[in-house]
């Protein structure tokens, strides 16, 4: 197990670099705790797999250093970094049996055979393929193959970190839940440092202690699921996490008050905003109360999704979403109030602090 330091890392795939935008991965400088479970979350092409491959050593960063437990491993090849990685699509050794597939990473590292046997049996039990141990891996289903890939990632007990690159894409939904909770349990049991790449927020939020949200080659926020929900640092985080995402409304800040389309709200604090910055107010649909008091809105649509209703409405000429309890009433002359504590203010898309 290891603490991972990402020291001023930047990466570009091309050779010609003229602008900061040429970097597929913009500067990353963070320390990840030993034994933490991190999820890298972001849309396709945001640089999350690049970051993962930099950690595993499959990609060498153009700039910066990477340290495991304070030791510089930037120039070490993958083999010597002592990490495990599970890929999006199953990688199995067709000609080997399921057992030999799992034993492969151990045998390559000259682990004594009794120890190999013990570890493999343990893992094969966990992924539920005991009955297939002596079968060739070739004929298995995609599900089973990916379980073998997962198993190969978990079989070594001494790894610095285990990396997952969207490993559950090919697994069917029911099995996803089972495997994810198994991973979670393993993490609790053995305290591996785990890094998990995904574009699925549910997966990220349920798996990780800390979620690393990436956008456009940058880490925009690292936080617990609750932090990401309550205090998104960037409008992108607000939009990406949560369903529906946070409402972001252009607003004018004046001292302790904010003004949108003729409506003013008291913030309870005075955000410090550089002059000329584009300012917006962010509020999650869950924290908007729909009732007969407050600011007027025009309702355009109501979506019933079971235990909740999502109300689509026009507020200050902008579309917003409001979450209403399933038997919450929708008045004929609807008005809304924002929960003051849950309002976030953004200047040029970045959150402006006010709580301190």
């Amino acid at each position, binding site marked *: 197990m290891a603490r991972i330091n990402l020291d001023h890392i930047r990466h570009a795939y091309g050779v010609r670099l003229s602008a900061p935008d040429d970097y597929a991965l913009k500067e990353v400088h963070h320390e990840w705790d030993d034994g933490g479970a991190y999820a890298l979350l972001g849309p396709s092409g945001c640089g999350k797999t690049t970051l993962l491959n930099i950690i*595993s050593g499959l990609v060498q960063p153009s700039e910066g250093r990477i340290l495991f437990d304070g030791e510089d491993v930037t120039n070490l090849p*993958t*083999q010597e970094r002592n990490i495990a*990685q599970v890929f999006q699509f199953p*990688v199995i050794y*067709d000609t080997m049996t399921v057992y030999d597939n799992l034993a*492969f990473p151990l045998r*390559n590292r000259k682990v004594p055979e009794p120890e190999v046997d013990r570890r493999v049996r343990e893992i094969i039990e966990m992924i539920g393929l005991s009955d297939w141990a002596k079968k060739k891996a070739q004929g298995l289903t995609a599900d089973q193959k990916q379980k073998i890939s997962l198993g190969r990632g978990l079989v070594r007990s001494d790894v610095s970190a285990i990396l997952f690159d969207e490993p559950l894409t090919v697994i069917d939904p029911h099995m996803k839940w089972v495997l994810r909770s198994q991973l979670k349990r393993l993490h609790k049991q053995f305290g591996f440092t785990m890094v998990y790449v995904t574009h699925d927020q549910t997966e990220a939020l349920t798996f990780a202690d800390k979620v690393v949200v990436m956008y456009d080659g940058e880490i925009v926020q690292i936080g617990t699921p609750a932090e990401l929900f309550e205090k998104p640092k960037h409008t992108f985080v607000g939009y990406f996490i949560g369903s529906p995402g946070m409402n972001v409304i252009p607003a004018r800040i004046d001292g302790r008050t904010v003004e949108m389309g003729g409506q003013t709200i008291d913030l309870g604090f005075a955000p410090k905003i550089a002059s000329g910055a584009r300012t917006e107010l962010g509020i999650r649909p869950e924290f908007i109360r729909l009732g007969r008091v407050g600011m007027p809105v025009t309702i355009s649509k109501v979506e019933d999704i079971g235990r909740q209703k999502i109300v689509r409405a026009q507020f200050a000429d902008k579309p917003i979403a409001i979450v209403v309890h399933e038997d919450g009433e929708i008045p004929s002359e609807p008005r809304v109030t924002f929960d003051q504590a849950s309002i976030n203010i953004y200047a040029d898309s970045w959150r402006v602090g006010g709580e301190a």
Partner: protein
Amino acid sequence: MQKTWNNKAWFMVLPVLVLVAFSAVIPLMTVVNYSVQDTFGNNEFFWAGTEWFTEVLESARFWDALQRNLFFSGVILAIEIPLGIFIALNMPKKGLGVPFCLVFMALPLLIPWNVVGTIWQLLSRADIGLVGYSLARLGIPFNYASDPLHAWITVVVMDVWHWTSLVVLLAYAGLVSIPDSYYQATKIDGASRWAVFRYIQLPKLKRVLLIAVLLRFMDSFMIYTEPFVVTGGGPGSATTFLSIDLVKIAVGQFDLGPAAAMSIIYFLIVLLLSWVFYTVMTSSDAAN
């Protein structure tokens, strides 16, 4: 893929059937016809039964040619398959080098077979050939026309030159279809270069290698033109392979009966050996 039962599909196969019947079945029937008859000219034929077959199978000449041919195919496969895989493994996978390599490597495959023979004749002759001359200057009197060993070396090297690229291209096509994540996984698993080859590349190459082995076996077993141009089957009968011998008997001596009987035996041997190769190479799949 799930296929539907439809006997009307026969109509789509019909053109192929007619064409192949014309270019294969009718000639083959002619051969069968000759193989059981005897003639003294004037288009008069007599039933000869299995006489020609017995004659061919009892002649040392046939067995010698068969032995030479088997040995030749064995040598060819033993050299070209590993060499072709080795070269394919070392080929660049992207960049300008790829089309460059492919174009040059494919070139020998598109040279008419007798021109291949001519090229090697021009290269190996001691008087005017670069290689033959150079060897002579080094004190090695190289003469493929009089020394059976030299003739064999020339024919084998010529075939390696001519056909190894086919194995290279097939193996290369198989290699580039392996997804990157396989190589990444082997690194993570700490696999050696050999293990990568043994457990990733070789299994993925199996299908194309089956094609390569079959094609190389069939074509080397049916070889005619190239050695005919270079050595004419000589010196003596050192490089007289089955095809060369067959043409000698059929066209040179016009012994239609024995030639036809030999043709049928020859064809059956190719079929049988191809079947053996196919069965052996796919047997591990069936066992699964």
